[in-house]
């Protein structure tokens, strides 16, 4: 996603880690005396989880399709510079350029997923980078040295990004709108800053390493695209609001306060529940509850890291959104522990229980969507993504049923916690 791809990566890694950890623990745990415990099915039908509707885009205004169209045109233009069957003495290099071109062309021709406009732009920027990599590799392999041009382009993108960042005073109609409008802008500027750095340097001898040349070109192309989108989103917002005023101070104050709230809420919940391991005296081995606790822990840690990172980076709009996300995660954890203590989530998962919790999660997300609250829509995103991730895994035949059910329970608990977390964040903003 435009807003927080790092979080998503961390989350996905976390899901995998939690699963592995839980499984690892599971294998070492004694199941003696539980011979009558029913076994969970190895899988559930591909359609057991189903899908969930994304809430309306929380970006305060419509995003012109011209932004995505520009990426598409640029991608196709770059691919047109590369012949389908390139002639290069090293036939393996020629083959790879040809197949990379074909793949990039297929991606460019595919319909972008029906998601929020900022996500559609993310998809197109990726396609544009793919095309730039193919073109850069082809030009390098055929003797064109783009090194000097790349240096100049890198500098221009960095300058443009710097000008955008310097000019960011979060002009908006309200602090809440500022958070929603500028969070993706901050994310794009961060992405641009990351990609414009010469992490992959252009080779001194491009003929000797054409694919590194392509990768370097793609990175700067992505940086340029991110800067363009950042400016485009900002202009789209400002162009739709009369007399927006700087909300910088309000955002900073809200971000700082919410960061403190996250910290205090976490401590308070820990204290109320009885420490860092409130279920330590219960045998949850092999249950959905065990997986649910592991998932909760990971997501809270990740969310708090995100808040700290955003505040430290001066990304105040992002910090507000991340803090709201963290608060909803903490509340989901608190509810999860309460339900487990009440004896829930210990049953052997089954197809029907998976279908049931999927429905519960879907209803919770639908509830947020029905609330017509853009801030809540933005905060529920991690829950929708978790649902989608689980649905994809089930459809592909991967993932344990226990883990599937735990993730869906968590998605439901998280989505249910979002409206209150959004209200809490908004009160600090306004």
């Amino acid at each position, binding site marked *: 996603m435009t807003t927080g791809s790092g979080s998503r990566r961390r989350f996905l890694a976390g899901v995998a880690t939690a699963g592995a950890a839980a499984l690892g623990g599971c294998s070492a745990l004694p199941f003696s005396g539980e011979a009558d415990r029913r076994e969970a099915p190895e899988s559930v039908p591909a359609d057991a989880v189903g899908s969930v509707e994304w809430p309306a885009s929380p970006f305060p205004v419509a995003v012109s399709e011209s932004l995505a169209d520009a990426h598409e045109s640029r991608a196709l233009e770059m691919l047109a510079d590369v012949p389908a069957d390139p002639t*290069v*003495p*090293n*036939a*393996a*290099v020629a*083959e*790879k350029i040809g197949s990379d071109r074909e793949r990039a062309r297929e991606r460019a021709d595919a319909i972008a997923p029906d998601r929020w406009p900022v996500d559609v732009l993310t998809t197109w920027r990726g396609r544009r980078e793919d095309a730039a990599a193919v073109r850069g590799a082809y030009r*390098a*392999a*055929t*003797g064109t040295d783009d090194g000097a041009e790349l240096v100049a382009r890198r500098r221009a993108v960095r300058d443009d990004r710097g000008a955008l960042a310097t000019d960011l005073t979060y002009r908006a109609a309200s602090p809440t709108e500022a958070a929603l409008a500028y969070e993706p802008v901050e994310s794009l500027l961060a992405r641009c800053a990351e990609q414009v750095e010469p992490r992959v340097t252009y080779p001194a*001898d491009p*003929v*000797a*390493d*054409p*694919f*590194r040349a392509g990768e370097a070109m793609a990175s700067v192309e992505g940086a340029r695209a991110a800067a363009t989108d950042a400016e485009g989103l900002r202009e789209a917002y400002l162009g739709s609001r009369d007399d927006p005023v700087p909300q910088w101070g309000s955002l900073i104050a809200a971000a700082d306060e919410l960061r403190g709230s996250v910290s205090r809420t976490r401590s308070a919940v820990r204290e109320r529940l009885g420490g860092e391991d409130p279920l330590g005296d219960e045998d949850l081995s092999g249950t959905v509850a065990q997986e649910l606790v592991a998932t909760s822990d990971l997501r809270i840690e990740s969310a708090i890291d995100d808040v700290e990172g955003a505040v430290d980076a001066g990304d105040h709009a992002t910090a507000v959104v991340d803090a709201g996300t963290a608060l909803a995660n903490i509340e989901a954890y608190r509810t999860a522990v309460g339900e487990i203590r009440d004896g829930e989530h210990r049953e052997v998962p089954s197809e029907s229980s998976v279908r049931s919790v999927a429905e519960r999660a879907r209803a919770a997300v639908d509830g947020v969507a029905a609330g017509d609250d853009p801030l809540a829509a933005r905060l529920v995103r991690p829950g929708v993504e978790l649902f989608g991730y689980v649905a994809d895994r089930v459809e592909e035949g991967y993932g344990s049923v226990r883990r599937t059910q735990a993730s869906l329970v968590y998605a439901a608990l998280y989505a249910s916690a979002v409206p209150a977390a959004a209200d809490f964040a908004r009160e600090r903003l306004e």
Partner: protein
Amino acid sequence: MAEIPRRRALLAAASGIAALAGCAGSESASNSYPTRERPIEDYEIETARDEAGDALVAASETLPSPSADEPARGRRGARRVLVAGDDLAGLTFAETDPGEALRSFCAATDFDAASVYLLSMPVRACREIRFRSVSVDPGDLAEGDLHPHARFCEAYRPADVECAPDEFHTVGFAIRIPVAADRSTGSGRGMSSSCRRRDRPAVFNASAAESGGDGA
């Protein structure tokens, strides 16, 4: 034979191996990090490429005959650790420029001061294998047994090299390690499918640096 361990110890000390070898043999040794492998910095290397795809070296009196079939291609690979001049006698090198390059490099080695880790392997004609690093097991070395481990990576050859992707060449590496040994009962080889990955970051150990030992 009594002189060999002393000679080995002196040579190993000179090359910075001794301190680490000693540490590895004693869990209680201070100022050391536990490690199974010790990177060698001051190696010398000779590389060779046979574009006909023939064997470069074999541990037999004759070389495998040229053949395009898969098993024969496998036989073109070889791996030997030479710790004495006599070890050379058991090898047959191809009478080609690349074969001779490897042979003469091995023959020029002073086995009182060094050993040679010799490898050859098939590679696709449009690809190349790059040497990345070599390390030894200090624990085994302390017993006079040299266990070298070489790391390689594979990459595309330059785009302007005329080649066909379904053909095979043979590449050879002779790595001169500044360590004398009594024997070698094992060796290792790692191959990464990409040359883009960096080596693991070095460990800082000021104490070892001060003692003239571990520069890793």
